[in-house]
């Protein structure tokens, strides 16, 4: 099989989508070295990153790289051309990973990664430009893709609800896995936490969808009710629309109890997961929720939202709470302080649960999907 794979988002500034593509393609190439791979550092005209992966980290006989484009315009012309498949060397499979759908894939099997459809539920969680690009891409996938890879059963269900014409048998769930392959790693204490003994941890970009405001309220209430005065650490860079988060914390009277670390390195994350009192993840909406899985992996007792994909990750290895009920979070935090045995139990359950997510398994599932896709006709030619 000649496999074409979009790696456009796997450059230096990786986010959730980029991690999936990066880890998946590495795992795929490890378990299936007999196939040839074309990795596309530029893919379409929606996501365009001048600092796209510039190096070719996988130099080997069966791997080559697709064209790089210096401008969005030239990328657009290339990827929208009607003969794009010939220009790409006629792959058997093309996997799209950055929301954009190539319009003229007439021979190869087009596999589209669906992360989430949050933008059709609450469009204000992102910018209008981003929303339009995401919706255009998913809509075109609903028309043109042969198969959809959904990163959770929740996303799969949502896609089929929004596009009920799409055959459910061609939407498969393949879970992403943790970035961290060494569960014994100790990590590295962040400078911002120098001298800090116990702390609550919440890992996410600071943005409305991640619901940090309500968590801050719940924490303020927890302190007011006499909860053990451990600081609350928000680990993550600034995302959308949350410029005044620091002043929000001031107004709650807890600015001096909260540590905003900004963007942290992988090693610092690992250390924080290992040493936190608990990991709090109150997100309104997820396609998967990597930080939840990663926290479980390193034994962090976890309190998380009960919505969308999160219960799929945690099963019964976490305490699940409605993201809008701040009093429930306050109570759960107070209870956890009083119940050290509960923390032990969650930590151990979490570590076990995390082992269910394995890149080898996911890559094998994707490979099986490719084989099935090539054995069957394209969707437009089936009954």
């Amino acid at each position, binding site marked *: 099989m000649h496999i074409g794979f979009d790696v456009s988002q796997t450059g230096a500034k990786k986010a959730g989508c980029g991690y999936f593509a990066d880890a998946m393609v590495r795992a795929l190439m490890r378990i299936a070295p007999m196939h040839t791979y074309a990795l596309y550092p530029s893919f379409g005209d929606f996501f365009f990153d001048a600092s796209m992966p510039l190096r070719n980290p996988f130099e080997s006989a069966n791997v080559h790289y697709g064209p790089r484009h210096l*401008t969005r*315009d030239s990328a657009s012309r290339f990827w929208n051309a009607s003969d794009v498949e010939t220009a790409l060397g006629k792959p058997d499979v093309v996997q799209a990973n950055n929301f954009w759908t190539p319009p003229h894939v007439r021979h190869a099997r087009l596999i589209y990664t669906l992360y989430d459809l949050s933008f059709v*539920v609450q469009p204000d969680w992102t910018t209008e430009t981003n929303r*339009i690009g995401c919706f255009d891409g998913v*809509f075109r996938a*609903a*028309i043109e893709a042969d198969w959809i890879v959904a990163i959770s059963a929740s996303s799969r269900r949502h896609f089929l609800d929004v596009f009920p014409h799409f055959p459910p048998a061609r939407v498969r769930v393949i879970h992403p896995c943790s970035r961290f392959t060494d569960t014994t790693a100790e990590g590295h204490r962040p400078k911002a936490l120098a001298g800090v003994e116990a702390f609550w941890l919440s890992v996410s970009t600071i943005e409305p969808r991640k619901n940090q405001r309500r968590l801050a309220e719940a924490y303020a209430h927890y302190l007011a009710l006499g909860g053990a005065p451990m600081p609350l650490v928000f680990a993550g860079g600034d995302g959308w629309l949350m410029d005044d988060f620091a002043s929000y914390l001031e107004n709650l009277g807890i600015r001096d109890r909260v540590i905003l670390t900004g963007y942290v390195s992988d090693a610092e994350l690992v250390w924080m997961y290992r040493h936190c009192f608990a990991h709090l993840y109150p997100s309104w909406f997820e396609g998967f929720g990597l930080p939840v899985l990663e926290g479980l992996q390193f034994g962090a007792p976890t309190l998380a939202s009960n919505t969308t994909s999160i219960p799929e990750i945690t099963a019964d290895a976490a305490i699940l709470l409605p993201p809008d009920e701040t009093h429930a979070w306050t109570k759960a935090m107070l209870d956890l302080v009083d119940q050290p045995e509960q923390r032990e139990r969650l930590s151990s359950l979490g570590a076990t649960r995390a082992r269910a997510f394995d890149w080898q398994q996911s890559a094998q599932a994707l490979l099986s999907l490719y084989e099935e896709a090539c054995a069957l006709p394209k969707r437009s030619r089936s009954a």
Partner: protein
Amino acid sequence: MTTFKTVVVDLTPVLPGGENGGAKIFVLELVARLAARLPQTQFVLLTQASSHGELACLDRTNVRRELAVGDADSGISRPRLLAWSGLLLARMPGLVRAVAGRLSDGYKRMLERLGRVSLLRKLEADLLFCPFTAPTYHEQGIPMVCTIYDLQFRTYPEFFTPEDVAQRRRSFEGACRLASALAAISDYSRRAALAFGHLDEARIRTIHLRLAGRGVASGGVDAIAQLGLTRGRYLLYPANFWRHKNHQMLLTAFGIAMRTGLPSDVKLVCTGAPGPRQAQVAAAVESMGLGKRVLMPGYLADDLLASVLAGAGGLVFPSLYEGFGLPVLEAMVAGVPVACSNASSLPEIAAGAAVMFDPRVPSQIVDAMLQLFGDATLRDRLISAGREHARPYLDADRMTQEYIALFEFAVGRQRPDDGVRAERNAAPYPDGAP
């Protein structure tokens, strides 16, 4: 009342056929009414070659056309030169194009100016009216009035080519800088113009498009049966297939509604001119298995469209952006209940007499569609509220008078600073507008 001896109207942007969309229909109607209302005023319509003949429909004793762009004898017309430079630009990489675009803007302006030195003075214009915004023929000392439609190029630049954005920005900024007075077609557009045009409030007025009677069926045409439709059993969306019209979202919502309670005989009719984008939408309809439920009959002439509108079970209007939204009012006049986007000018135009939805959220569009067909009490309320609300928008005469008052205001502003009135403005003028 001031008498304008000569009003020059820039109709050079008018293109043949339906390319200008609703703006052309509005402008032609307004010009005819202005001419009828001011029989003592001579109207000179500046035209370009490709639509010069079509605009003969406006000819009257006090209306004549003046071919200003494109000369049959000259061999190379300015529009062709501009088209060539556009083609050349399209082949250059983005960065180069942005710079070249700036240079060519200047080049284009120069070309434009070359052809019309003192045209207004030759025509003895008392006023220049630019109903398509662009102040192309502006000359110092001659009052100018421009109409502002919307600032979509600012809100949704991704829906335009970079050249188009630059051109629209130039037109808008030029109009704001040079016009003595401006008309915005909605309060929404007026506020947007104030925010981005460095205008003072007194200089720009809202003058609504009071042309909602255009869609009234004159009877005798049964397009409904011709199209295989059943009266009352379809939704209509009359819109060209531009991106801001949001057809993909509408199809998505219709696909969901079909499976979540929309009666199985209800169809969706999307009129609008054929072209590459219509073909894309049509392909999506097929792929989504909606071929039997979604009709795309192409561009319908006025009387056919009026017929189809009058027989609709509802108007659905999921546009992401509008400067006004005349089809909403036309539906209300026709007694058709409306489900409408809440974006841009639409809340102002629908004013509570429609079911509103966020056009970015398919489930809200689904709910609105289901309400239109599932709730008879609501339907009746919408129909009667809509008729009541839309009535003032039938008063095209009022709109004409508002433009005349604006013209008078513009001429008054152009007076010399020492307060001495120019001879041609001998009589005082009422400026009753707020």
